[in-house]
């Protein structure tokens, strides 16, 4: 285990802003902290990086407790941090990338070769002698990442590193960062509110709300099996329905929702209240009732109430007696001649429905 936190509590202005009972960061793994603005991601990151002293609780790095100012200073020599703003010094790009190495007492030759290697890795060798103040947002963030990786940290903390960049720059940087993290096997903790970015980068994903980690697991687990409605909503589950279990079958059950019945997989008791979460990518739209040979167990007739373009695909809002949301490609939209007011049939597999017991 690279880093562990126990019973962490951070207070600000008399209010508890972070309350974490236990968190373990495995070596060579990428942990992302996701959550809405104000969830405490940045504060937790600063605390885990030894830059903010917790009100109580402990940090353990490679088995050593970080319990004093001296220990925190020594611990900081093993890490690097990148913020949303590049925070470059008012000097050349080369000097910026070299700054961490100089603070670590490295000498000329090592500095030159390490800086050159990292500038090349982030594709900014041609900017080495440019003033950091003249760089574009993307270039500056590349320089900031190069500065962080130049010191070969054991853990790198990234606080919303791409949040202020335009979409194409962000995508290119996420790809580069992913490749470099895989290559260097650096342990990373990344705070982001962008779930797509988190999905791309994480080995483990922790969802934060109001200073607490409400769910931690693999990205697939968090996305497909959210712990509660709040998490479900944050991770992009568009349809969240509450109903009562009406019938139990062998492995599946029927949930009554607003006059409709939904068949899902799960262990529940008859009469129990439960929440069904359906991700839009799991809802298929048909213009006719599909073949009886389909493996889907749920078919709902509904009217298209709204079609929202989402770039490469469309978001379809259906009224099936209850709201249901689906994603379709532009080709499907065209082929099925989908338009607002049209009656369609939506199908959902029982296994695609995530059930949360109330």
């Amino acid at each position, binding site marked *: 285990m690279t880093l562990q936190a126990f019973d962490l509590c951070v207070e600000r202005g008399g209010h508890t802003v972070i309350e974490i009972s236990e968190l373990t960061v495995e070596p060579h793994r990428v942990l992302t902290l996701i959550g809405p603005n104000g969830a405490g991601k940045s504060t937790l990151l600063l605390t885990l990086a030894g830059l903010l002293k917790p009100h109580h609780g402990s940090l353990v790095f490679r088995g050593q407790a970080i319990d004093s100012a001296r220990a925190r200073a020594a611990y900081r*020599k093993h890490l690097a941090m990148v913020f949303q703003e590049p925070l470059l*010094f*008012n000097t050349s790009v080369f000097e910026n990338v070299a700054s961490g190495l100089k603070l670590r007492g490295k000498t000329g030759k090592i500095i030159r070769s390490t800086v050159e290697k990292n500038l090349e890795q982030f594709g900014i060798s041609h900017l080495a002698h440019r*003033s950091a103040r*003249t760089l574009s947002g993307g270039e500056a963030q590349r320089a900031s990442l190069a500065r962080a990786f130049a010191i070969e940290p054991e853990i790198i903390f990234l606080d919303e590193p791409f949040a202020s960049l335009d979409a194409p720059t962000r995508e290119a940087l996420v790809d580069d960062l992913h490749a470099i993290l895989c290559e260097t096997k650096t342990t990373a903790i990344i705070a982001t509110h962008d779930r797509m970015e988190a999905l791309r980068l994480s080995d483990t994903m922790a969802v934060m709300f109001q200073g607490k980690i409400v769910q931690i697991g693999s990205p697939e687990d968090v996305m497909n099996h959210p712990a509660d409605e709040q998490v479900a909503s944050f991770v992009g589950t568009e349809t969240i329905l509450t109903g009562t279990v009406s019938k139990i079958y062998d492995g599946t059950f029927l949930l009554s929702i607003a006059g409709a019945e939904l068949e899902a997989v799960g262990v529940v008791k008859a009469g129990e209240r439960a929440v069904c979460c359906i991700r839009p990518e799991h809802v298929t739209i048909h213009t006719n009732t599909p073949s009886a040979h389909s493996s889907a167990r749920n078919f709902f007739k509904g009217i298209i109430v709204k079609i929202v373009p989402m770039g490469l695909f469309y978001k379809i809002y259906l009224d099936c007696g209850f709201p249901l949301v689906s994603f379709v490609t532009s080709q499907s939209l065209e082929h099925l001649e989908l338009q607002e007011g049209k009656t369609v049939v939506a199908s959902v597999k029982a296994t695609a429905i995530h059930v949360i017991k109330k």
Partner: protein
Amino acid sequence: MDLILEGIKKACVLLFTLDAEVLRITLLSLGVSGTATLISLILGISMGMLIALKEFPGKKFVISTINTGMGLPPVVVGLFVSIFLWRNGPFGFLGLLYTPAAMIIAQSIIATPLVMGVSVAAIQHLPKNLRYQILALGATRLQMMWLLVREARLPLLAAVMAGFGGVISEVGASIMVGGNIKGYTRVLTTATVMETSKGNFDIAIALSIILMVLAFAVNAILTYVQQQERPR
């Protein structure tokens, strides 16, 4: 008009003939105000940085007090420094009254709030996460403070200019604690006051021109350095 032209002519003569008395007065002015500026920089930047970085109760009140101190009247400073250094005063035993040291003390008190006020604003103006960024790069607290000063060097150079400009041109405190003693505590401003009161306007104008040239030269050098550093 003749009086002014005569003054300019006299100033040129005094400057180019390297008049011993004028040279002594000019060097003492530079020495006293330069030392006071240096002291105010050490005190002002370090304390300004501490105030800017630390969170403590009453911080806003402290900053307001410093900002008020930026307009501290030199005569008030002169009065209190005189009282403290007076033969029967708390520090009378030091025998500093009517010495260049007393003038340095008074001028340091005038310049320190100026430097401190600008330093607090300059450091607070830096991105808040910059200090965390520097620490995360492996810096010690001292290295972090040095790097922050380096990042705020443009406004801090303005603080140097404000501090030096404030003390080289002040007369009230210098005359009260220095006494304008010929060959010992006479500086450009006190000499100008004395020559004016004696009706020697040509010498007074000459001394004023030297004072302005001196202030301009120092500020021109600092401005040049500052503008070289300006991000383009």
